[in-house]
C-alpha cells in the first residue's frame, strides 16, 4: 500500500476542501478502497475519512412518503430497517444478497454506489487497462470475460459495475444528492454512472472533491412493495458477485400490470434500467408469455464482448424469472437465501 496522509474532517465544508486536492480520496467503510490500495490499483496521496462525519447516518422518512438515506448508513442497517424493508423489499433483498454480513456491517450507501469494477484485468497491475491507465489498452478484450458486459460496453472497456444495491435502486428511480464546492445538487441514479465510451476511467458524474450526501427513493417506489424481488446468479450460493442479476417490481391492478420496473446487474458498466421491457408489460396479464417478451426486449441490444455470449440468454432467463417471482408476490419474510434461485423448498435443507 502506498503512503498517504490521513485526515478526519469535522464538517462537510472541511471534508470537501480536503478532498478537492489532487490525489485525495474519501474513505467511508473502506471495504473497496483499502482492497484496491492493498493491490496497488489506486494510490491516493490523502485519505479523507468521512466515516464518522455527522449528519450523514440517518434514514429519514419524508412527508410525501419517500425516504432519504444518508450516505453513511451501513448496508446492513438499511436492509434490516423493518420499515425500509417493508416498503422497498427488492432493495433490502439486493443488499442482503451482496458481500458478507461483516462487509455489509462496514459498507456504506455512498461507497456501494462508487465501488469499482471486479474486472480481473483491472486488478492485475502488470497488465494493460484503460480504466487504470487511459490509452494503455484493454487486456480483458480476448481475455477473461466471464464477468464482462454484454450491454453498454465500448471497445475501450468491457467491465461491469458490480453492485447489487444499485440495481434495485435504479429500478425504483432513486436520486443521488451530492455536495461540492459549488453547493448541493441532485442526479437520478440512472444518470449518475457514465458509460465507458472512450474514457472508461470516468465512472460517474462526480467532480473531484464532490461528496455523496444521500440517496432518495420517491414515495411512488413503495407502491411496488407487494410485488418486488431481486434475483442474482452467482458462482456459489452466497458471498459472490453476480454473473447476472435482475430487480423486478410490478403493480398489478385487476389482474393486469399497471406499472413495471426492471433493472439488470452484472451485465453492463452501470446499473442497467430496462425501460423498453417495462413498457412492454403495461396493460397485459402477469404471465409467462409476457415476461418472456419483456426479457427479450431487455436484452434486445445485447452483444457479447468476448467469450460471454452465454450471459445474454442467462440474463433473459433471470429477467423472466424475476418477473415471475415478483408476480407471485413479495414473501412475508425475506428468503433465507436472499436473491438466490436456489431458495430451499420447505423442509429440505440446502447444503
Amino acid at each position, binding site marked *: 500500500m502506498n503512503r498517504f496522509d*490521513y485526515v478526519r474532517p469535522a464538517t462537510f465544508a472541511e471534508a470537501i476542501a480536503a478532498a478537492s486536492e489532487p490525489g485525495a480520496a474519501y474513505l467511508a467503510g473502506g471495504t473497496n478502497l*483499502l*482492497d484496491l490500495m492493498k*493491490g496497488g490499483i489506486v494510490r491516493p496521496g490523502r485519505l479523507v475519512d468521512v466515516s464518522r462525519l455527522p449528519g450523514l447516518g440517518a434514514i429519514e422518512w419524508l412527508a410525501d412518503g419517500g425516504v432519504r438515506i444518508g450516505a453513511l448508513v451501513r448496508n446492513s442497517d438499511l436492509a434490516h430497517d423493518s420499515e425500509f424493508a417493508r416498503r422497498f423489499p427488492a432493495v433490502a433483498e439486493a443488499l442482503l444478497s451482496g458481500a458478507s454480513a*461483516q*462487509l455489509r456491517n*462496514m459498507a456504506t450507501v455512498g461507497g456501494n454506489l462508487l465501488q469499482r469494477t471486479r474486472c480481473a484485468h483491472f486488478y492485475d497491475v502488470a497488465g494493460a487497462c484503460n480504466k487504470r491507465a487511459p490509452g494503455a489498452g484493454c487486456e480483458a478484450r480476448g481475455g477473461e470475460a466471464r464477468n464482462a458486459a454484454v450491454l453498454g460496453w465500448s471497445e475501450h472497456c468491457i467491465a461491469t459495475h458490480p453492485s447489487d444495491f444499485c440495481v434495485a435502486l435504479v429500478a425504483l428511480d432513486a436520486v443521488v444528492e451530492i455536495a461540492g464546492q459549488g453547493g448541493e445538487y441532485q442526479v437520478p441514479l440512472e444518470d449518475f454512472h457514465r458509460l465507458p465510451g472512450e474514457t472508461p476511467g470516468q465512472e460517474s458524474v462526480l467532480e473531484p472533491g464532490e461528496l455523496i450526501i444521500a440517496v432518495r427513493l420517491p414515495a411512488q417506489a413503495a407502491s411496488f412493495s407487494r410485488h418486488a424481488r431481486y434475483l442474482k446468479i452467482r458462482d456459489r450460493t452466497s458471498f459472490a458477485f453476480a454473473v447476472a442479476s435482475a430487480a423486478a417490481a410490478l403493480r398489478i391492478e385487476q389482474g393486469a400490470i399497471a406499472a413495471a420496473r426492471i433493472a439488470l446487474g452484472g451485465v453492463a458498466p452501470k446499473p442497467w434500467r430496462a425501460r423498453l421491457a417495462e413498457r412492454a408489460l403495461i396493460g397485459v396479464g402477469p404471465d409467462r408469455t409476457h415476461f418472456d417478451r419483456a426479457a427479450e426486449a431487455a436484452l434486445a441490444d445485447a452483444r457479447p464482448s468476448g467469450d460471454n455470449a452465454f450471459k445474454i440468454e442467462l440474463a433473459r432467463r433471470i429477467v423472466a424469472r424475476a418477473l415471475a417471482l415478483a408476480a407471485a408476490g413479495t414473501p412475508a419474510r425475506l428468503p433465507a437465501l436472499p436473491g438466490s434461485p436456489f431458495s430451499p423448498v420447505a423442509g429440505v435443507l440446502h447444503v
Partner: protein
Amino acid sequence: MSLSVLLSVNGVAREVALDDPRVTLLDLLRERLGLTGTKKGCDRGQCGACTVLVDGRRINSCLTLAASCDGARVLTIEGLAEEGALHPVQEAFIAHDGFQCGFCTPGQIMSAVGLILEGHAGDDPERIREGMSGNICRCGAYAGITAAILDAERRLAERNRAEAA
C-alpha cells in the same frame, strides 16, 4: 505523520501511537498488541479469518484502518472467555467439532457471536449458513459450525433464563 489511537480492547483501554496511518486494525491487534488470536487469511475481505467485533458489530479487521477506530470498543477472541470460563459459543464449537485445523476458528467464533447478537437468523440452519457465508473454512467444518451455533443459541438462552431467575 504520527497519530495516536485510543481503543478499548477486550475491556482494557489501550493508547497506541501510530507512526504510519496504513496500519489496519488487524495488524494493530497482532503486531502491536500481541493479540495473535485474530488471524490473517486473505487480508482482502474474502475469508473472514480476521473477524472481530467493533462496537458490538462483526467486521473484517483487515479492511479497517486502525486510525478510523479511534474511540472504538474492540472485542477479539482473547476477550470472549470470562474469568476462565469459555463463552457458550466456544464451548459449543468444541462440543460439535466446529473446526479441524483451527485457523479459521477465531473468526468463525467471533462471527457467530456477532450473528447471534444481530438476532436475524434464529434457529433456522439455512439462515445461519447464509449469515456465516463471510467465513470460509478450508477444512470444510461447516456442518459442525452450523450445529455449534444452533447449540450455542440454546446455551445462551438457558444462561439468560438462569440469570433472570
